[in-house]
């Protein structure tokens, strides 16, 4: 039930009034800036990832050429004693930015996405030095579409809609309006439809603009699929806020009280909720100390190096076949390998701990997020975008596993000091990061998104009840 007269009047009022137009324009501008900036950052990351991978693959290929040269007899073995040195096997491992990393930057700003996997590096050092970003910049957070939708959109909705009923009430017009054959519900719904509808139109346009801007043209299938979920999540968050606003308007309070209530709710939902949830998750499931982890890795490395002869002895006992008489390459290579392996083995439980803590925190938040819809929406949006922490943790775990796979494959040759053959070089697997498939993403996010819609509908139902009551009581104190 919508009153056409109010729709027409509201549309005109919305366009004539300077403030709503400015606010809507500002929202559109922020969305546009967010899309452009998001696309720029994603592109930079993509370029960095591609360049990194290309450079390392080139190195690997140059290195393979040396093995080919020796094997084919083009180069005498003694002229290139290091060609095919098993310890030198190195491969890049890269996680290109998530399919919608331009929509939501998520955790990508602070985590590594490239790794030069090499047997010389123990697993705690696989990700190299990436901590060069400006601390001020990462502290401030970024302006992406997720920020525009999660933070700015509700504010614009509140600013446009908080006076939907109270404005007429405060100015004394409501009595005259309601003496006409129109229900309070129609009045409020028509007003909200125009005001919130304008925000939604901008949201839809902005998301589609982002879809094309980020793709730099026609988006591909994966991006489109993810976009579908993103759109759903953004709509769910919109519905949640629309419901909340509808409900606060239906309480029929003074304009100031309604505005304060909504801003208070925004603050609780968008700032306090996530801050408290984050603090709680970290308090209840504290991460193992990074510094202690570092110390452990170093202590083990030191100890292994110091007792290298024992380590070597142990290795030879395990692998008597590796007792090679004419061992020509320097001893330190074998030692380094064994030390690194020892470190890898001993930090494994700590790394598992880190991973387990993150899993426990995720489980905790998966439950508690229902108390803070902004946190819930953000987590869903990050997962859809492929910029969530779980994805990052998965990448890091996979890279460590990848190193172990390479180590297992060439260990014999490292220890025996023999060259790898071309066939063995070619048998070294390569790494590629696989995004989780759309179905899995859908299974994870559909329920939370549904919850947002449900909250919105619940609030709307409560609002409807309030307004029906108000219909015959609006002058009762």
């Amino acid at each position, binding site marked *: 039930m919508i009153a056409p007269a109010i729709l027409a009047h509201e549309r005109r009022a919305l366009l004539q009034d300077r403030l709503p137009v400015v606010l809507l324009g500002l929202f559109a501008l922020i969305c546009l800036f967010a899309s452009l*900036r998001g696309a*720029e950052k994603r592109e*930079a990351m993509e370029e*960095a990832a591609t*360049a*990194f991978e290309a*450079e390392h693959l080139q190195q690997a290929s140059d290195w393979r050429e040396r093995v080919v040269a020796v094997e084919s007899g083009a180069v005498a073995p003694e002229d290139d004693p290091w060609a095919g040195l098993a310890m030198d096997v190195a491969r890049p491992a890269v996680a290109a930015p998530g399919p919608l990393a331009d929509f939501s930057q*998520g*955790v990508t700003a*602070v985590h590594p*996405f490239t790794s030069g996997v090499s047997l010389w590096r123990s697993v705690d050092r696989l990700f*190299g*030095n*990436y*901590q*060069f*970003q*400006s*601390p*001020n*910049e*990462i*502290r*401030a957070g970024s*302006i992406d579409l997720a920020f525009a939708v*999660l*933070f700015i959109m509700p*504010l614009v909705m509140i600013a446009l809609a908080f*006076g939907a009923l109270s404005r007429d009430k405060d100015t004394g017009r409501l009595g005259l309006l309601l003496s006409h054959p129109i229900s309070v519900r129609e009045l409020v719904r028509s007003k909200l439809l125009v005001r919130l509808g304008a925000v939604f139109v901008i949201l839809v346009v902005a998301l589609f603009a982002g879809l094309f801007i980020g793709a730099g043209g026609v988006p591909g299938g994966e991006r489109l699929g993810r976009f579908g979920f993103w759109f759903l999540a953004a709509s769910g968050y919109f519905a949640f806020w629309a419901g909340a606003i509808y409900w606060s308007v239906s309480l029929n309070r003074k*304009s*100031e009280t309604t*505005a*304060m209530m909504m*801003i*208070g709710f925004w*603050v609780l939902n968008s700032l*306090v909720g*996530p*801050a*408290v949830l*984050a*603090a709680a*998750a970290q*308090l209840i499931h*504290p991460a193992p*100390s*990074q*510094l*202690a982890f*570092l*110390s452990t890795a170093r*202590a083990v490395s030191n100890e292994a*190096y*110091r007792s290298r002869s024992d380590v070597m002895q142990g290795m030879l006992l395990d692998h008597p076949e590796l007792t090679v008489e004419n061992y020509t390459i320097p001893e330190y290579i074998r030692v380094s390998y064994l030390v690194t392996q020892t470190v890898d083995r001993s930090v494994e439980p700590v790394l598992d701990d*880190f991973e387990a803590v993150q899993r426990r925190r995720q489980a905790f*938040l998966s439950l508690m997020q229902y108390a803070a819809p*902004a*946190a819930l929406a*953000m*987590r869903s949006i990050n997962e859809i975008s492929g910029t969530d922490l779980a994805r990052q943790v998965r990448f890091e775990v996979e890279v460590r596993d990848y190193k172990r796979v390479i180590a297992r494959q060439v260990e014999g040759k490292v220890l025996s000091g023999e060259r790898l053959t071309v066939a063995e070089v070619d048998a070294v697997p390569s790494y590629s990061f696989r995004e989780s498939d759309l179905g899995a993403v859908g299974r994870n996010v559909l329920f939370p998104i549904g919850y947002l819609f449900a909250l919105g509908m619940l609030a709307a139902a409560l609002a409807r009840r309030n307004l029906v009551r108000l219909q015959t009581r609006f002058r009762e104190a």
Partner: protein
Amino acid sequence: MIRAIASKEFTQYWRDGRVVTVFGIVALLGLAATVTGWSAVSAMERERAAAVAMDREIWDTQGLKNPHSAAHFSRYAFQPTFNLAVFDPGLTEYVGNAIWLEAHYRDPATLRPIEDAVEIQRIAQLNPAWVIQVFAPLLIFVLLYGAVAAERESGTLRQLMAAGVRPVSLLLGKAVSAFSLTGLLVCGVLVGSAFLMSAEGIEALPDTGLRTVGLVVLYLVYLAVFVFLALGVSALSSRSRTALAGLLGIWIVATVLGPRVGPEVAGALAPAPSAPEFAARLERESSDPFWGSSEEAVERRQRVMDGLLAEYGVETVAQLPINYDGYLLQASEEFGNEVFDAMYDELWGSYERQRAIARVFALISPTLAAQNVSMALAGTGIHAYRHFADEAEQFRREFVLLLNQEMIDHGGAEGYAYVSGNDFWEQNPDFEYAAPGIGAAVRGVWGDVMILLLWLALAIAVAAAGVRRGFLGEMAA
């Protein structure tokens, strides 16, 4: 007169449920944030103390090792988290805690706490400074939006004027009441933090007393800006509803948008170097031109050798009374150090350029300026971090020199086969970090201080003009 007005205001606050609720929530948040901050800082300090001790122990017990190999293993500089970080952790979460002091390379600080944080912490991190920066202005606006506008609406302004109240008395009476209530909150949070800061195991920053006074003054000025802004807007608005809407708009721009938009725009205009690219360049440019096989590198090494041979007046390396390998290593360090200086200057320079651009946004967001000053006073800003990183780098250079010198002096013909023992390691010095005093801390934020004072002057002018206009308008009515 002022006292009468202020006391009436207090009574009104007390009877307004909304004010009591908001005050209660903010006070509770402040308390929670203080305790969280204290627990985080003491945990970090506990972990650091353990890591420092472990680092020393590992170093001392590494057994027989070539000094240059030891320089590769080297030691770590652990960044202390000082007492005032309980109140304002600033960049603490976003900069690394540990810098590896290895030979040939200037590492960035690694182990950034933010990497372990759950993703929703990126929305907001609960800490006392944040609570004050964001919520105290909101509280002030809730207290004061009706200060003049509501008096006018209810007609009490005319009565006050008839009773001989002058504009300045009204202004000060209202200002004093809101200011003392929020000032109480700020002082409460600061005193609470100070109490917890003095807990055992947390290191005190030099000039802690002065810095605390500075923080108190900073936040009182900060509050005053918002108090006068609120009074001005309230007086200039025809209705309290309009005043509230305007003030909430200011709050959002100042505390939510400004601090995020500023650094983001700065990042877009003056991009910092991409992390993987910078890391790769750092490694390449500090190493290849010296150790590579290019003509330039070969010549460079040749020059080092020729110079040394000439210095000792001998023909061949074998005739040198010192170890040549050690000398060459140290020469490469000195070459690398120049590259590090240039490249890190570029990196820090880009951070500085971003800060300068972001500072422009302090003109629309006093919060941004206050954050910068607060971090600087608390010793958790970018300059404190840089000071630590530079000191650590200085130590790294001296430490690597010490180890290379050991090889130069005693390595003789053994070169890389020369080993030192625990008695040598035990004599090696520790990195003792002394944080800079308050003078150095505030040097980088004068611009922000000026902008804050400008805000204060502007706010007072707006408030004075507004209240005067309000009185004149009422007289004309």
